[in-house]
């Protein structure tokens, strides 16, 4: 069924000009089709012998439906492509869904004159107000509640919500007695609680979900892990903190980040971006570290050029980013440009993390909990604080061999913390 016009998506054959056995050549008129506008001749673009008419007269079919089967002239009887190549995808005509039934609102049967007068004064439309009185009648309080809700400015509503002030309790100084911003500010308790938009985490959750789905879809992950004896690192940290004030105190996370940065700078293939199948190594190690927010949700602020920073500088950067993340003062620059991501769930008592890479990055390093585990030293089993370091990497960019060399570099740096 040919498309015969801009707004045609189906047609009905009113007359076949040819039948099985007839020979047709290019340009012949083989049928007449009725469209909404008029009957139009249908020409054929192939030559051959008509073998079978697939659509009878009078049946409406969508554009692109094969109408007849044509045999080639030479071998009659052989099946050939249907007359008109049904190239057009059948237009996606979606059946009109029946409109959802409008919810039935029980409308107040009777309104006393008093209620009606009050409603007029408060600009309340009683006709479709759900009454709470006997038999659904609209009562005074129904009107007042509707009226009160009716007159407060959007700004007043926002300030009231933020300041935890009950709008109903205020008398308005705005137009028509509406409560306005000034009224709320005047009625606000002295110290308003921190503003936290509750729906922020929902939209954040969605954004993370989308990214993770894309990552799983596009990036062929491979996972490696290594256990690292942290006793040297822990000893080094304790000694280091003794010479530092509490404000400069180092957390293990700073050391883990620095070790990862040094490894990423040394072993190629884990620090950069992969877009349209081409890998672009980053010029410096811009380490994103996953920070959970107290109201729920995650952000990944970035420590730029981490490999070039001292452990103290990494700690200072980490402390600043986490504090600003949790107080909602991160800027766009803080969360962009990451070339490698580290997730450190040690705090929550998890042994190992098998993460999902954040596209378009090409690797993710995870640190589990540092906990005492049996560990063989000089043939004897002793207790040692051990951490499991995992690597999730993009097989389009690196392979297991390089992955192993990367984890080995991290382990070596953790075992010689003074070198970090």
């Amino acid at each position, binding site marked *: 069924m040919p498309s015969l016009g801009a707004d045609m998506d189906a047609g009905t054959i009113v007359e076949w000009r040819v039948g099985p056995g007839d020979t047709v050549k290019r340009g012949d008129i083989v049928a007449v089709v009725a469209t909404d506008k008029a009957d139009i001749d249908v020409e054929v*673009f192939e030559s051959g012998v008509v073998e079978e008419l697939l659509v009878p007269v009078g049946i409406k079919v969508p554009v692109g439906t094969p109408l007849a089967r044509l045999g080639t002239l030479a071998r009659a009887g052989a099946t050939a492509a249907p007359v008109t190549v049904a190239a057009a995808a059948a237009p996606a005509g979606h059946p009109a869904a029946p409109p959802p039934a409008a919810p039935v609102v029980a409308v107040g049967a009777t309104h006393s004159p008093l209620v009606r007068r009050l409603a007029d004064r408060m600009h309340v439309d009683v006709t479709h107000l759900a009454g709470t009185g006997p038999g659904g009648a609209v009562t005074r309080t129904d009107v007042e509640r509707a009226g009160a809700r009716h007159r407060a400015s959007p700004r007043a509503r926002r300030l009231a919500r933020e300041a935890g002030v009950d709008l109903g309790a205020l008398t308005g100084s705005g137009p028509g007695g509406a409560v306005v911003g000034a009224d709320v500010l005047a009625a606000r308790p002295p110290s308003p609680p921190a503003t936290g938009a509750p729906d922020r985490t929902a939209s954040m959750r969605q954004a993370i979900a989308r990214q993770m789905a894309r990552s799983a879809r596009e990036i062929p992950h491979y996972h490696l892990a290594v256990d690292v004896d942290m006793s040297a690192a822990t000893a080094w940290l304790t000694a280091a903190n003794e010479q530092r004030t509490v404000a400069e105190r180092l957390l293990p996370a700073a050391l883990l980040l620095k070790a990862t940065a040094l490894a990423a700078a040394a072993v190629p293939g884990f620090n950069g971006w992969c877009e349209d199948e081409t890998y672009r190594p980053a010029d410096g190690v811009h380490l994103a570290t996953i920070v959970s927010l107290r109201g729920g949700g995650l952000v990944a602020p970035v420590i730029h050029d981490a490999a070039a920073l001292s452990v103290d500088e990494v700690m200072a950067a980490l402390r600043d980013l986490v504090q600003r993340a949790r107080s909602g003062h991160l800027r766009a620059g803080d969360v962009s440009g990451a070339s490698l991501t580290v997730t450190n769930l040690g705090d929550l008592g998890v042994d190992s993390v098998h993460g999902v890479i954040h596209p378009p990055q090409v690797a993710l390093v995870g640190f589990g909990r540092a906990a005492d585990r049996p560990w063989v030293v000089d043939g004897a089993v002793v207790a040692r604080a051990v951490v499991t370091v995992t690597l999730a990497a993009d097989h389009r960019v690196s392979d297991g061999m390089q992955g192993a060399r990367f984890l080995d570099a991290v382990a070596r740096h953790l075992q010689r913390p003074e070198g970090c």
Partner: protein
Amino acid sequence: MTAELTRDEGLRLLHEMLRIRRFEERCVELYSAAKIRGFLHLYIGEEAIAAGVCGSLTADDTVVATYREHGHALARGMSARSIMAEMFGKVDGCSRGRGGSMHLFDASIGFCGGNAIVGGGLPLAVGVGLARKLQRSEAIAVCFFGEGAVAEGEFHESMNLASLWGLPVLFCCENNLYAMGTALARSEADTDLAVKAAGYEMPAWAVDGMDVLAVHDAARRAVAVVREGVPVFLELRTFRFRAHSMYDPELYRAKAEVEQWKVRDPLDTFPALLRERGLLDDGDLDRLEDDVRAEIDDAVAFADAAPFEDVEDLTRFVYSEVAR
């Protein structure tokens, strides 16, 4: 009155007309297969005009056409690829897939597009002529339009302005006797269009639009006059063998009348004339047909393979991309 004709010139005109004819025929198939959508207006039957007129222009001239402009675009030098890709809505189309069949544009060859408002292009062409005059340039503006446009105010305003200011504009009226469904006699008090130009003191000639040599000869003479700053009106009498557009049951004209004009199909009469003068051997026509088929097959393949424009670019080119 057939001028001296060389073999090369003859073959060039024949090749041009054949190219347009086969291109338009392929469009019919592609439209039926819904590869080409929207409105499609075919030039079959009028090829001699585009071939004849465009053949007498220089590179600096500007052409302003209408929505039935595949023939003019091809004759002016636009590639079959860029036109086909345009009708497939692809970004490699001459207008990045934004214009479609009715709005073909190519700044590099001064092809200032199809215009889907009847008569809408005439003031533009007058403006180009005005600019060339002010720039002391030899280049001219040529505008093509159907006899339907003669009923539009813009036609009369433009003809008057061009004549009043002596602008280098060539008005080519392709009189194919039917403005969509209305025969000329039912829309114009005086159906002799050339006479209308006299009202604006503008030289005008009626030409047999089915005779490519007559068109070519008339165009050459007219262009010479226009380059002197005297606008000319050419009434080119022709006939379109197919419907106004793809959705027109042609109830307004008798099939017999169409057949009567088909007898004078330039793609039959011109090859016969060339053979008569010994300028066309048997092999020539087949070779031209093969070349043309190859060019069109390539154009279709190119259009099929070409990508669509990225939706992110939707709002580009509403304003020029310059630092503001």
